[in-house]
């Protein structure tokens, strides 16, 4: 089972590296964003700025909810007062400069890349402002991306990779250079995808629990009875990690309220005793 990965870039020229490295094809989603993908990777071009990026994250996670168990990244270029142009950095703190709100991806893996704080601004800047450190990065999307993505996803599955494009001279960034600079983001993005595993165990448990869902439907249990059966069934499965609970074929399917209550009580006793 593969992780489903979403990548959002502001500009198409930032996303080209992923499109070409992963062989992604244009997708006709009917949505407001350009989108490229295959079975397990989806690239969205959001457009520049906080609103576009947050909207793209929300749209992507609504259209492809399986990404919520995978990884979602924002990759792109950023400015910095001092860091080397072309260097790739994983972001450990993103600050929305308009509100001073700070957001933190949960980096639970080691990596060989730089790490930095990112300040997300509303319009391009050519100098540091209060609160920005010399080694901090500046972009126009990152904090908004995290704020939106973390509404749906655990914070260890949402990450930012930024490549330094300029030393606070955004006007001098040549669009032709961006594709080349973004080549340096690809290894960091691949590293994160490899390091953040998917929730396989949860999926396995969901599958094993299906027998109790079927019993609930077949026996026409009430919602509270189904909840009771699910809780007890889950306990049985946890005590039998390698076992499947067999369909209770020896028990008659109940036909009325009284026989339903009795059948459920008998089944629950059987589950606790097993």
């Amino acid at each position: 089972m593969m992780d489903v990965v979403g990548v959002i870039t502001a500009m198409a020229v930032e996303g080209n590296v992923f499109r070409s490295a992963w062989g992604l094809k244009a997708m006709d989603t009917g949505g407001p964003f350009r989108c490229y993908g295959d079975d397990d990777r989806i690239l969205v071009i959001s457009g520049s700025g906080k609103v576009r990026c947050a909207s793209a994250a929300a749209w992507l996670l609504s259209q492809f909810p399986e990404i919520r168990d995978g990884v979602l990244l924002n990759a792109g270029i950023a400015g910095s007062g001092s860091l080397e142009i072309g260097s790739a950095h994983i972001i450990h703190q993103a600050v929305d400069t308009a509100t001073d709100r700070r957001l933190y991806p949960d980096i639970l893996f080691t990596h060989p890349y730089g790490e930095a704080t990112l300040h997300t601004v509303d319009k391009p800047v050519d100098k540091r402002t209060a609160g920005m450190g010399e080694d901090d990065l500046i972009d126009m999307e990152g904090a908004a991306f995290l704020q939106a993505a973390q509404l749906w996803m655990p914070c260890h599955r949402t990450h930012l990779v930024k490549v330094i494009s300029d030393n606070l001279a955004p006007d001098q960034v040549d669009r032709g250079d961006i594709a080349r600079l973004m080549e340096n983001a690809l290894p960091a993005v691949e590293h994160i995808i490899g390091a953040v595993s998917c929730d396989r165990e949860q999926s396995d448990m969901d599958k094993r629990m299906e027998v109790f869902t079927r019993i609930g439907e077949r026996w026409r249990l009430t919602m509270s009875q189904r909840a009771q059966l699910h809780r007890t069934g889950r306990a049985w499965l946890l005590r039998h990690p390698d076992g499947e609970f067999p369909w209770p074929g020896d028990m008659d399917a109940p036909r009325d309220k009284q026989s339903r209550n009795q059948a459920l009580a008998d089944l629950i006793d059987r589950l606790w005793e097993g």
Partner: protein
Amino acid sequence: MGAYSRIYIEKDAMDYPLAGAVLVNLPRAKRILIDHYKDVFNRPRQDFRAQKDAQQLILAVKRPPYLYPLSPLCETYGYERAYYTTPALNCPYDCDFCFLQGMYPSAHLVVFVNEGDFYHAVRKETTPFFLSVTYENDLMALEGLVPWTGRWLDFAKTMPHMEMEVRTRSANPGALMDRAPLPNVVLAWSLSPGSAASRYETRAPAPPERIEAARRAMEAGWRVRLCIEPVIRIPEWEEAYRGLIDTVFDTLPAERVDSAVADVFRMGRPGFDSIFKTRDDTDLFAFRPEVTGDSVTYPEHREMGDRVREMLLAHMPRERVYGGIW
């Protein structure tokens, strides 16, 4: 997976000596300055299990209160006034039964560095009282990283009317070795049968190592308490706990053990329900629950607790065996 490879540091915490002592121990860790530890510790949608595999460190300044009254469900060893304090939140071990996983949104380790504020608050207590400094952490296990245990021991010297408990699963009582034993400090080792420890206390030292650490502390003159809790309903639990207790008293002379306490596994209902729903990797919570007050426990909890305490009473007088107050 890179434990403590990243240190989040509150700006206000930077200048405290204890912060410096921690940072010296982790020179290669990435440092991230933050405004308030809760910005990281309380952020939404954290994955406690994933974090346990790569625990990170947060250095912070504790704001009041510094002392909390112990719950009436906790053993207070005869003291009418009993408190706990929280010099650190969370623990490097990963015990399945730990109540902290149902209480905190994060598994990352918070270390509070403003030790003077803690001592100032405790000094206000002028009549005899009991203080647990390890209610929400295992300070002794962290001693190589944060020298909190040694500092609390130094402080305890100045508070003879305070009985301080340092509870641990650590096998490394290094903080004790250069210090003279203190009559008002009890070192309490949590012990479980090997079969329970290997299944539910996967990162903690094996019980024989803990017993050996307790023996060394006792030999150095420290008061040692045995904590047989939580008692867990493992297969053949009675034989397993009898075996543990026999082993303990083969190593530790019963007459020199300060005290012992035994209590059965229980957990607050909201925490229990939340962990049961989210953890697929343990069967610890997969029993038919009995609700007593606000807690969930085994239906046979009374019998189990009584039996284990009887095992202790075979070695120690009743006035030194505690537990079973709930």
